[in-house]
């Protein structure tokens, strides 16, 4: 269960305002993509939701709770990065279980959840490998599986397909879409990948730090 509400959210760096009051409501289980020209503030918006950037003004709510002042870890989210951001010195399994591990989840449960997430993304055979031994597509699937294993209700993805070739990206988009449909996650992505756009529930357009339109796919 995760709904997200941006209310009049602004962001300034010094005296320069880059996001000028954005309002977006995202329902539980929706698959939404933020689009717009580069530098329009869509990544900043996502990173504010993740807790990686401070919010200058306005509020961000997750499930009705204002999260402005919360640490990323207190927001019950997971994030997939453009460059995978896998820990190079850990195996695939350790990468996936890392967050659970230091939240003192019992070992058996970690193993079970890692197995489960790996199964969904077809990574069962790669659990003992290191990220450098995997292809780009496999790495990004590990990143998605890592997000899934933590079982947050809200998954964020920043340009998840930008480093991938067409076929691999399509496969990843299938995986992401299935997360929302089959496993009831809310997924918010920043992307300019048209293949990804076509699978969205909704597209939110941004330009110059302001909302310019929304398109529903139904």
């Amino acid at each position, binding site marked *: 269960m995760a709904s997200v509400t941006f209310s009049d959210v602004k962001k300034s760096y010094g005296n320069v305002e880059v996001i000028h009051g954005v309002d977006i409501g995202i329902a539980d289980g929706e698959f939404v993509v933020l689009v717009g020209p580069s530098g329009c503030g869509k990544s900043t918006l996502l990173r504010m939701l993740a807790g990686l950037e401070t919010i200058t003004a306005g509020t961000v709510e997750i499930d009705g709770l204002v999260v402005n002042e919360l640490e990323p870890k207190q927001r019950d*989210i997971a994030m997939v990065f453009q460059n995978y951001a896998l820990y190079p010195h850990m195996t695939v399994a350790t990468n996936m279980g890392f967050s659970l591990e230091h939240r003192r989840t019992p070992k058996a449960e970690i193993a079970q959840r890692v197995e489960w997430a790996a199964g969904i993304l077809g990574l069962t055979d790669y659990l003992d490998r290191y990220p450098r031994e995997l292809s780009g597509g496999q790495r990004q699937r590990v990143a998605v599986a890592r997000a899934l294993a933590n079982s947050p209700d809200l998954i964020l993805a920043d340009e998840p397909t930008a480093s991938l070739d067409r076929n691999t990206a399509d496969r990843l988009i299938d995986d992401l879409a299935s997360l929302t449909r089959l496993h009831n996650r809310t997924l918010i992505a920043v992307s300019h990948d048209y293949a990804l756009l076509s699978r969205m529930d909704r597209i939110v357009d941004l330009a110059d730090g302001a909302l310019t339109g929304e398109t529903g796919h139904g």
Partner: protein
Amino acid sequence: MKTDLSPRMKVVVYGLMTVLLIPFVFPTWWMVTSSIKPISDIFAFPPEIIPSRVDLSTYSRVFELQPFGRQYWNSAYIAALVTAGTMLFSAMAGYAFARIRFPCANALFMVVLVGLLIPAEVTIVPLFQMFLGWDMINTHWPLVLVPVFGAPSVFATFVMRQFFIALPKELEEAARVDGLGRFRIFWTIALPLARPALGAVGIFTFLHSWNLYLEPIVFLSSPELFTLPQALTQFTDAYGGAMWNVQLAAATMTAVPVLIVFVIAQRQFVEGLAHTGLKG
């Protein structure tokens, strides 16, 4: 450059390199072989490149004339402490300067960098007075504290900072989303990934401490506290003349273990150096 050489050029290059090698390799060879020659043979003419007779009694003389075992231990434990301390504190400072945004970070970094500009020799007189005031003259404290926290560690901090700057930002963001605080990010993500830079810093810090000479002779006066470089120069006869065979035996014992470690781990040495040097 980097093209295949003609066979004739190959001979020239090999020949030139072999001749150039003599002053690099021969002294070490001469040190080891002379130390096992009987005293009567070490100035023999013609010189014996390969010893004809072996006399190992010189090695026991080393331990009779000086508390050499004790001095060996002094050098070893000081170098170990200095290396471990420098690696830890320079990694911490380098990480903070590279990855954490906090007020005055750049100004404070400039303050630290001043350490690069000031050779240890410039401050040796006041350091002597400071340690005298703290009652630390003729102890090992100055030989540990100054390298770990003072000017010699600044270069290590600089190297670590250059390394951490190149670390992808997303790794830390992923770790924060995974719920890690700053200290855990540093300890479980940044530090394990910094192993090559840490290795280079460790190697060169160890060598620096192992070679230190001015500081021990300024700060230490009791033979049982001496470090190896200082001890090596103490093997003189009643007239102040060098006891060459004993000196060379002590020098061999000082140099050869490090050389052996170097030969085993030479890739880390050389690549570590190239790594830090390029970035520096």
